């Protein structure tokens, strides 16, 4: 899998964000070896769309998100935010565009400065960009806190340690919305939360997306969570995309053996759930320092053939808005649409 190609990209002029052939590599000490964290990943987001990015730890999800944000700039490839190529911009030009892209992180408590008051944390983006008068700034803070379900009256002068994880994540979301971004990147935003609170945050993100017309990249390792929030899902393995598509199609008829394995691995909250013929995935994710040749999933793939070792598969359509990078997709012969 784990293939390259751009067949799954859509009309470039319609996309709010379009990343082409992203490559991120990290040098491994002075050995001359490289960690191939992201290898030739392309993805795009239409306005108002949520793209879910799933994969195991070490698959390069967070590195991809950071490459999109130019933190740091990818080794090669281009990232277009509304047709402006971010990788070619100067530092100050890039900085001008930063308010349009915001991010929320996995651990909400460590993303907030423990010594500062909630109002100051949430007002910080406005102060940096000198938007409005102080009075206007604090009015907006109250309004946004209210919209994420935090009572501004009680929260204003308190500090992050006085809030639970779920409430801290609400505060992080409020801060990310202050500059009215076009794109919100959520990196595992609910992984650190309890299940009962997780649902609250997922519903909140859904509401805010509708209210603010947000476009979101939603990274998570939990496939059910990703399906719930996404308009389109991309599955990642060892620095490459395996499969991209509409969530309902991708989950009901996965075309990539890796996607199927992931889906089969999920424990169902139902003791009578059929276990199927799931044999499990043998071995572990190979080292990104020396990824396998050809298809990167071949070392663990039940259907691997000689071809998979020699030729890297490219993204091919297997249905309407359903693309897979596999020589032997589970649907049979790829259909051309």
């Amino acid at each position, binding site marked *: 899998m784990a293939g390259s190609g751009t067949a799954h990209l859509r009309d470039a002029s319609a996309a709010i964000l379009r990343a082409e052939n992203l490559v991120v590599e990290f040098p491994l000490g002075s050995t001359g070896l490289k960690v191939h964290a992201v290898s030739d990943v392309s993805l795009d987001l239409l306005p108002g769309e949520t793209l879910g990015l799933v994969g195991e730890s070490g698959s390069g999800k967070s590195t991809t998100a950071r490459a999109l944000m130019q933190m740091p700039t990818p080794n090669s490839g281009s990232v277009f935010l509304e047709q402006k190529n971010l990788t070619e911009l100067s530092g100050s030009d890039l900085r001008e565009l930063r308010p349009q892209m915001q991010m929320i992180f996995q651990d909400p408590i460590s993303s907030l400065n423990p010594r500062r008051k909630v109002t100051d944390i949430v007002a910080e983006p406005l102060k940096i960009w000198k938007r409005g008068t102080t009075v206007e700034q604090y009015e907006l803070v109250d309004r946004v806190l209210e919209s994420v379900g935090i009572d501004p009256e009680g929260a204003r002068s308190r500090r992050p340690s006085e809030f639970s994880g779920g*409430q801290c994540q609400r505060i992080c979301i409020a801060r990310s919305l202050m500059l009215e971004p076009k794109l919100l990147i959520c990196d595992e935003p609910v992984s650190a939360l309890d299940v*009962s609170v997780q*649902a609250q945050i*997922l519903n909140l993100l859904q509401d805010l997306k509708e209210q603010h017309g947000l476009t979101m990249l939603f990274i998570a390792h939990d496939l059910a969570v990703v399906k719930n*929030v996404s308009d389109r899902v991309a599955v990642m393995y060892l620095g490459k995309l395996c499969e991209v598509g509409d969530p309902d199609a991708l989950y009901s008829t996965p075309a990539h053996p890796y996607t199927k394995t992931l889906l089969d*691995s999920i424990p169902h909250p139902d003791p009578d*759930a059929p276990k199927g013929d799931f044999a499990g995935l043998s071995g572990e994710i190979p080292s990104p320092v020396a990824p396998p040749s050809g298809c990167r999933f071949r070392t663990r793939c039940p259907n691997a053939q000689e071809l998979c070792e020699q030729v890297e598969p490219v993204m091919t359509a297997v249905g309407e808005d359903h693309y897979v990078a596999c020589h032997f997709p589970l649907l049979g012969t790829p259909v051309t649409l």
Partner: protein
Amino acid sequence: MSDASPHAQNSPLLEVKNLSTSFRTEHGVVHAVDDVSFVLDRGKTLGVVGESGSGKTVLARSIMGLLPKRNVIREGHVLYEGEDVISYNEKQMSKVWGAEMAMVFQDPMTSLNPVMKIGKQITESLRHHLGVDKDEANATATALLRQVGIPEPERRLSEYPHQLSGGMRQRVTIAIALACGPKVLFADEPTTALDVTVQAQILDLLDDLQRDRHMAMILVSHDLGVVASRTDEIMVMYGGKVVEQASTSELFGNVRMPYTEALLRSIPRIEDPSHTRLEAIPGRPPNLLSPPTGCNFAPRCRYVQERCLVEEPPLESENGHAWRCWYPVGTDSKREALARNLAPGVPIGIPAPGSMSSVGDR
């Protein structure tokens, strides 16, 4: 544990009776585990489910006597093969740890010693409990590593934990726990730190080992999906109390406790179409320093009535299914309660669905 006890074979393997554990803190006493009782037979698996702070880990550690003595109040009985181990001192307990009861922790990196070779960490308990010599211990360790699915076990013995991946490290902690052939294995969130594909491998491994060794297991998890297919009985904990307890099929087939029902409904399901609205539980778990009067779950419950806010429901039991609710799910009284709450007018102190008031927040 000892053959001297004449009832050892007739009594259940592990019986916990009215176990309560409290912590003295500078802000007051926290009742982390409140009056928990259960029976675990040989070869069976008990699932303990709850959110963070519900007391599931403290329960496991209380039973094993792994909590510090200072500022901890432990009451009740822990009968292991008929013998009450709650009064055991550390020296007596050290005969129980590893050989009779063993534990696998959530984070395999912090539960392994980073500066001790893996071989030494496995053979330590073998040599202590079974008094075997070095060569024999090494041979056993190699066999154990092979059993838990670690390739090239001989080489791994002389490696350090950081040289292994997370899944492999968890296999090593399982090997350590199993070294002396315990009869009860406590697995405290054994797969929470692992990827979903590795999680399936580890749970399958625990299943197989348990069957081979006819070992009882207490599987602690926040994930109802993990416990659903791998346990015989389930205990749902909330705010330090058992709120529902039944056989696994009964619990999932016939939920009585509103908290369990709410928990099941709030999980995104893979089979639901995308953008299905989740039924979130408003508020957050109770603060155990000042728990609400009446039912712990009342401030977040959609069925809440006046009575729930003042009077705490007892753990009621019917045909082996126990729950702690005045208006159990599936009864007429519950349907009436919900109808009253949904009726126009002012419901009793519950936030409107979806809104986040400060109820239960702090």
